[in-house]
């Protein structure tokens, strides 16, 4: 019912194309997260789905119906704005019930829905306040309440948690996950936050410069990034990338260390190798692939980050679980878990893995 499809969608401002060839098929009830660097077009894409921004080219369908030219009010989509956009002259209850007021739903039904939503969001005591008398987190919840009050076909969220402090973010993130489970509605969610993206999404859409880089489940993006951009964008801390020379089933680093990569196809074309910080082991000096000097050691409690200066390759970040007794200045051997390594061709495209049957 609320399947959302975008076919060859293009968005231009004047002569500038800000989104190109967007193809997305969002299943009913799916939780899609849009990520990408600032200015890549996430908000624009969301606003086109909402109907607030005209679509320059291509087709946009909801439930199989073409919706390009349908007014926002007739799309039956709710949106939580990045700025919350609460009506400042209306109290919390009226803010939340506004859509039902406009639809001329019976007042008693509206009241009970508002009360229900306020209970769900922990706003019961605040229903008579004006937005200006609310904290950021409370405003955020009112904005959410305004969306859930009318069970729409789809929800759009534009960085709803970006202005909240860390603990409130975690709380609201769980709230949104719970909401999705309860309502089972299609949700499209824009965020800059890795953790939000990885924990909430059924599928993540990675955008860069107006193009979709990859669409896939969080694990898929983490394990099989389609290109260097996705590889470096997904995962925190960022994947290490070093220049290599390709060879048959192996790559060779600048200082002549060969690393066997039998799980990748076409390693002859590789010009760079990517390895996530958590996929490097610290070993005895001569037992690993690389040798380097620990430059900075960060003890995070649960993890240890070691920035290792490897001669000829530059800095490599190693992340290990637990507390590693390393200190600045230590000479360390690094062993690359080659089965978890990625390799990229000259155009940045990731070499495919032999054990998956991707098309």
């Amino acid at each position, binding site marked *: 019912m609320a399947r959302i499809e975008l076919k060859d969608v293009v968005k231009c401002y004047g002569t500038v194309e800000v989104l190109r060839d967007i193809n997305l098929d969002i299943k009913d009830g799916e939780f899609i997260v849009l990520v990408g660097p600032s200015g890549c077009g996430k908000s624009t894409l969301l606003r086109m789905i909402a109907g607030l921004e005209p679509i320059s080219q291509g087709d946009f369908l909801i439930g199989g119906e073409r919706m390009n030219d349908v007014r926002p009010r007739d799309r039956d989509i709710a949106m939580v704005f990045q700025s919350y*956009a609460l*009506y400042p002259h209306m109290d919390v209850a009226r803010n939340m019930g506004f859509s039902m007021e406009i639809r001329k739903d019976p007042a008693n039904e509206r009241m009970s829905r508002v009360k229900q939503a306020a209970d769900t969001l922990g706003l019961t005591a605040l229903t008579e306040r004006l937005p200006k*008398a609310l904290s950021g987190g409370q405003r955020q919840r009112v904005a959410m309440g305004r969306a859930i009050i009318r069970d729409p076909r789809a929800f759009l969220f534009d960085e709803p948690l970006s202005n909240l402090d860390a603990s409130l973010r975690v709380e609201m993130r769980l709230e949104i996950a719970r909401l999705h489970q309860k309502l089972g509605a299609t949700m499209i969610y824009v965020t800059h936050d890795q953790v939000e993206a990885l924990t909430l999404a059924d599928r993540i859409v990675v955008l860069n410069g107006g193009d979709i880089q990859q669409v896939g489940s969080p694990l898929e993006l983490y394990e099989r990034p389609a290109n260097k951009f996705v590889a470096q964008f997904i995962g925190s801390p960022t994947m290490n990338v070093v220049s290599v020379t390709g060879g048959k089933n192996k790559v060779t680093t600048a200082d002549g260390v060969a690393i066997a990569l039998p799980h990748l196809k076409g390693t002859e074309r590789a010009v760079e190798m990517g390895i996530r910080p958590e996929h490097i082991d610290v070993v005895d000096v001569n037992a690993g692939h690389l040798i380097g000097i620990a430059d900075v050691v960060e003890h995070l409690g649960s993890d240890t980050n070691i920035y290792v200066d490897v001669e000829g390759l530059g800095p490599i970040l190693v992340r290990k679980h637990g507390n590693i007794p390393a200190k600045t200045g230590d000479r360390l051997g690094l062993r690359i878990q080659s089965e978890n390594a990625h390799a990229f061709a000259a155009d940045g495209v990731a070499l495919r893995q032999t054990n998956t049957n991707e098309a």
Partner: protein
Amino acid sequence: MTVARSKPILTAGKYAALLAYLTFALFPLYWLLKIAITPDQLIFSEGTTLWPSSLTLDNFRTVLFQTDFLYYFGNSLYVSLGTAAATTLIAAGAGYAFSRFDFGGKKIIIAIMLITQMFPLLMIIAPIYKMVASLGLLNSLTSLIVVYTAFNIPFATFLMQSFFDGIPKDLEEAAMMDGCSRFQALRKVIFPLTLPGLGATLGFVFTAAWSELLFALMLISKNEAMTFPVGLLTFVSKFSVDWGQMMAAGVLALIPSCLFFIFIQRYLVQGLTSGAVKG
């Protein structure tokens, strides 16, 4: 007021400065009132004493019942209210369009509106007279409303535009997502938030029209169509500058302006949009 507690001298200084300014600004008004209630024979004899030795309301009585003052007053009220209403209505529409839409010629229209504000009024008074005369509207209050409206629209439009600019676009969009048409969003969300802007514009235009003299003098020569500022001049000729009555008329003329601002001042309170966005 942490400031008040920690720096009493600074606070006292601030109030002293405010007091000095108020005295300066309100002194002419005080003088107006003083002369209005001073008996005629004392005006010159007592000179510049701050308070006359005896008071009278004769001047008010004469002005109200023995001159055409009430007539002028009504004319002025009619013209000023008409101008304020017409200007604000048009300026609100134009300001909204300038603030929210991109359309062909927008820049040119804004430029032209700015240019109209650059000419000294004296330069265009003759052509305006000819136009109004050829329309047969001389000596009619309608002509004043039309001319005042035309003159006030550019400034009022920019004023309204800046008020609309101050209302986040997200609010309208949120309303549209909530099921409003653009017009409903305007009426239910934007309009209530623009009340301070509408109030300010109404007040500004009303006062401008209320005290306008040049065009009124030019376009009106018949007594029954005179507005108050023109009528005030009749005190000069008829009674060889009757200061007491003139000042009494002036005091009375302040009343509608004051009432008007008392009426709209609650819409002028700031901060109506606070809380809309996570600032």
